[in-house]
Structure formats: C-alpha cells, structure tokens
C-alpha cells in the first residue's frame, strides 16, 4: 500500500536556509497540507493496528519521489494485475493527491480514503487470491 501525500514540514531548498522544519507547524498556510498529513497518519496507524508491522507493506511518500514511485507501482501492477485503466492511471500519475495506491490501484484519489475503502480493496485481492488457489 502506497500513501502519496505532500510533506507538511518541508519548504524550499533547505540548504542555506534550514528549511521550514518545526516552524512549518506555526505557518497557518500549511493548514490544508497538514490536515491531509494528519488524515494520512490516522489511516497509517489504523492499518498498522489492524495488520501489525509485517501484515501490510505501507509506504508513505511525497509526489516528487516519482523515480522511486514509478518502479514500485510497476512492480505492484505486474504482481496484482489491476484493470488496464487503473494501471495506466497509476503509472502516469494521473490522479490528484493525496492518493492511496492499494495493490497497483488508486483508492480515494484527492482525499484520504477511509480504512473501510482500503480494506475492501485488500479484501477483493484476498478473495481473488483464494479463488485463484
């Protein structure tokens, strides 16, 4: 599961300015980004509580880490074979952030999905894998 969201405590070139760091918490204009980060944090915690440290592989990442994201997503697409449309959308980053990518398929684009939506997607995969077996 890959959570793509913007960082709520960075800003600009940090070298030679130190970056926003802790001060980002004071900056009211970070409110929107911070709210999304909080919701992603909530989802992250809920998933970990449910599945433990090793049950689900959770990656939380910034949109600009595209060069890491791309091969990771490709790997998931090859492994879990989502629909063609989902695969194209995911590979070309064709969705608004925040987004949660579950087994190569975007879930809850532009908002942080609820744990039920994520579980539904995970459940579908589990059913598929059981039927497949």
């Amino acid at each position, binding site marked *: 599961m890959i959570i793509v969201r913007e960082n709520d405590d960075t800003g600009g070139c940090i070298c030679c300015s130190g970056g926003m760091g802790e001060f980002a918490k004071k900056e009211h204009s970070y409110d929107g980004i911070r709210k999304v980060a909080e919701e992603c944090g909530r989802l992250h915690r809920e998933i970990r509580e449910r599945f433990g440290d090793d049950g689900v592989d959770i990656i939380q990442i910034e949109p600009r880490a595209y060069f890491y994201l791309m091969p990771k997503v490709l790997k998931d697409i090859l492994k879990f074979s989502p629909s063609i449309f989902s695969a194209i959308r995911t590979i*070309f980053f064709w969705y608004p952030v925040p987004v949660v990518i579950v087994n190569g398929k975007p879930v809850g684009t532009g908002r942080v999905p609820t744990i039920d939506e994520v579980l539904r997607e995970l459940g579908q995969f589990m059913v598929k894998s059981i039927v497949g077996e």
Partner: protein
Amino acid sequence: MTVNAMPLVVGALCVMAIFYRYYHGFIASKVATLDDSRKTPAYTMYDGQNYYPTNKWVLFGHHFAAITGAGPLIGPVLAAQFGVLPGYIWILVGVVIGGAVHDFIIFFSSVRHGGKSLAEIARIQISPLSGIIASIAILFILVVALAGLGIAVINALSESSWGTFTIGCTIPIALFMGLYMYKFRKGRIAEGTIIGVIFLILAVVFGKDIAHSHLAPYFTLSKTRITLFILIYGFVASVLPVWMLLCPRDYLSAFMKIGTIASLAIGVVVVHPQLRMPLLTEYIHGGGPIIHGKLFPFVFITIACGAISGFHALVSSGTSPKMVSRESDIKTIGFTAMLIEGFIGILALIAACSLFPADYFAINVPPGVFEKLGFSVVNLHGLSAEVGENLVGRTGGAVSLAVGMAQIFTAVPGMRHLMDYWYHFAIMFEALFILTTIDTGTRVARFMIQEFGGKFYKPFERVDNVPSAIISTALITCGWGYFVFTGSIGTIWPMFGTANQLLAGIALCVGTTVIINMGKAKYAWVTLVPMAFVMATTLSAGWMNITQNFIPMTQKQGLVFQGYVNSILTAAIMTCAAIIILDSFRSWYKSVFIEKKEILVKEVVSD
C-alpha cells in the same frame, strides 16, 4: 600545464568509495555502534504523520534533495581563483573527513535523541546556554547566507534582459502552478509540474526573442533595481501562503535539480574537458581579485557547502531522523548524500576551471580591477557573442558557472549551436534555487525573530499577528538587503562561509559531546579533528576579515558604518561559536574526569 578533468573525477570517486567503505564504516560500527535492534524514533514516537518508518532510498532522496542547494555550486567557482588543486583537495578531504562525518554524527545524535533539533541536542548535551546561543547563531547565519546567495543572483541578472525575463517568468509560473494544483485542479501535482516545466523551458527559449525585441529595455535592469526587486520579492514571498509560491516552486526545482546535476555529471564524463586554470595561481599568497585573503584560511571558507556545511546539521536533525527505519540506514543516508554533494562541488569546480584563466577573471572581477591584473582575454568575446550577453565583470560566481556548464553541454555531440540556451538555462536553474532559499530563509528568520520578540512582548510571537509579521519580515529583509546593497561578493561570501563553517563547527562540537557522553571518549577524535580544523580556519578567517578588511573600511569615507556592521556581525558569530566551545569543554571535562571519578568512587565504596 593543463589537466584533463577525467582523472580528477575518477580519482574523487575512488577516494570517496574507499573512505565510505573503511573510514565511514569504522565510524558507523565502532564510534556510533549503529544497532538495528534499537527502535528508531519512527517506531518509538510513531504517529504515521511525522514519525513513520520510511524506505532507505526514499529517505535518501528526500535527505539529498534537502541538503543540495546553490552553495556547493557557487563556492567552488569562486575558489577557482586559487587554482584547480586547492579547491579540489579541500572538497575531497573536507567531504570525506569533515562534511560526511558531520552530517552522519548529527543525524545519528538526533535519532538517539528522539528526532530532536540541533539546538535541542545542544541544550540537552551541553547546557541550556549553548542551546540559546546555537539558535542566535543560526539567525545571524541565515541573514548572511541570504545576502551571499542574493548577491550571486543579482549580479547574474543585472543588465541581462534574457536572464531577467526568464527568472521573472518563474514567479508567475509558480503562482499559476500553485493556483492550478491547489485551487483549479486540486491535488493534480503531476499535471501542474509538467505544465510548469514546459512553461519554464518556453521562458528560456522565448527569452532570446524578448532580448532582441522592443521589450528588451523593460527587462534590462541595473544592479540597484534588481536588488530592490529581489528585496520586495523576498518580503512578499515570505508572507504569502506556502501553497501559492513555495510549494509549486519546490516541485519545479526538485526535478530541475535532478535533471541538471545528472546532465552535468554525464556531460563532464562524455566531454572530459581540459582544465585551463593552472593547478595553483599566484593568488594563493593573497591579494586575489575575487577573494582577497590568502589560500589559508580563505579557501576553507570560500568552499563551504561542497566540503562541509553547517546548514546540513539542521536537515540532519530535522525531518530525516524522524523517518529513518533502521539505524544502519543512517550510514547510507548520512554519509552518501554528503559525498554526492561533494562530488557536485567538484563538478562545479571543473566547469569553472575549464574556462581560460583570463576569461574566468574577466567575468568574476569588475572591469577596473581586471585591467590591473595584466591578463588578456582569450575567448571571452567569442563566449559573450555565443551566449548573447556581455560577460565582462559579472561577479558572483553564478555567471562563470553557467558559462562553464554551457560550454560542457555544448561540447556534447548535437548541442553545438545551443550555447546561449544552455547558458540561460543554467542561470535559471541557479536562480530558481536561490529565490526559493530567499523565500524560505526570510520566512524562517521571521519566525525566529517573532519567537525572540515574544519573550519580551507575548503577542509578538503569534504568527497570525499582522503587525508582528510585517515588522519581523521587514527587519530580516532589511538585514540581508543591507549587506547586498553595501557589499560585494568579496566581502559577503567570506562572511557567509565563516558563518556556515562556524555552524558546522558548533554541530561538530555537539557531536563530540554526544560521543564523549556515550562513554566513547577514545573515539572523540573523529569529530574533534574536523571540529578543530574548521574552528581554527574559520575563526582565523573571521579575525582576518575583521582586522584586514572590515576595520580598514571604517577608516574610509562612506564605508565607516558598513565596516562596523560587518565587524560586529562577524565578531558576534565568532563569539557564539567560542561560547559553545568553552561550554563544551566544561561538559567534556565533567564527563571524562569528574563523572568517571564519581563512578570509580562508587565502585570502591560498594566493594
């Protein structure tokens, strides 16, 4: 004698690899004793938002992007006045023994302190006084850093309609991206970034047409007017919401940074240019036209970020330690990111040294000074014609770096006739970083002033207090603006270098304290040696700057106030560093002798 760049590049990579394998391996295993069974703050303070375990390579990318800015590009270019060797050796030795160790040890210390900041670690490990002094030093250093970087971009843009148009365009482009990504097509980061990059390239391309049109005079601005615009920009940008300008430009610069640095590295390897700059120049004995002091200690403060940078301590004790999932990852991230930054510094040095010395000096010193040097330009007029700009007297380092980079790019097959575009692309690339640094730095310094002010008048620290925000932003903008207006690259850059290196010295001092307090005093030399070197060179450079440059200024008419301000600021930063060193000595003495004795006494009594 000319040298080919290739052996220097390969040699640097080999030295870095050997040091990483053996010396850094030794520090990681024996000094820090990284232990993967210990839970990192990502687990102990896990909240899924700021503290969460992150893949090593994701965090590496994040950390590297954060520590790399304009500093490692400009410093080596200015230090090329001493020749190829001083800069090359200092970057290489500095980065493997100083910079990488500095970044690693602060990263490690922060992880062991639950992801706390440098000032907090100083407060805990040394004393509350050192914590406060570290914060004050950071504020001073920020003001000087903004002035140092600001002057580089101002000198690159003055009297350049193409450059000014292109850089000017980055502001509406970023604003448009901000509105697009956060208002019109909310969350469409990828679309916004692609559109931004396309517009940016168009701004570079059409800049040429603007420069040859009737609009050119509107974009051909004097140094004073550019300075004024950048000051207004700094003021406005730092109070605008982050989503409007800062975040979108962050996306632009992130991709530009990766692309341009990778292209430069490939270009140097493919072209492997001859370095026309001699190995050593006559200016090693002092009297240089760019940096006036001698090789020792001035080369060590001219090249700051590429070899060792205090600002990295802020990154290493910022976001990265909160996200690292295993202690062993600190080795890869902390050391390697800095080694690559050193490598970028070497590439910048190569780009500058590939110019003929006379051309290099003609660009980097004012025409009046250049005439007295007795050089005759070799290819400068040809270069000026090729880039479409008058390159004479474009001090600050940014222009000669852009010319050097453009020369390397155009030597790649198929690029021959694109010199002017590559030059302006390189200028845009440097300015993009610097403007973002000005925006962030002014904003951070504003918060720091508001925090200090709040100790005397409580409402002042509230960030939503408009008068407080305006007063503190104005104070900071006027602070760095004053240095830009009154100084030159020759006076400001050494101050920036001194400040940055003193911050590194302070961080190494904190690192040494952490090692000693861990009961590893016998390994304290790993940070003590670079600390002693950095402090010795920087304090002597600071002292020489005051006595040889700034105090004589106070004797000259019209420069009295500037001389005093520069002297006082440099002395203040030096005093901050001296206080932290003395305070650390007290803490080390206590840890090594008094507490050890107390433990021994306890053992004897219990026996």
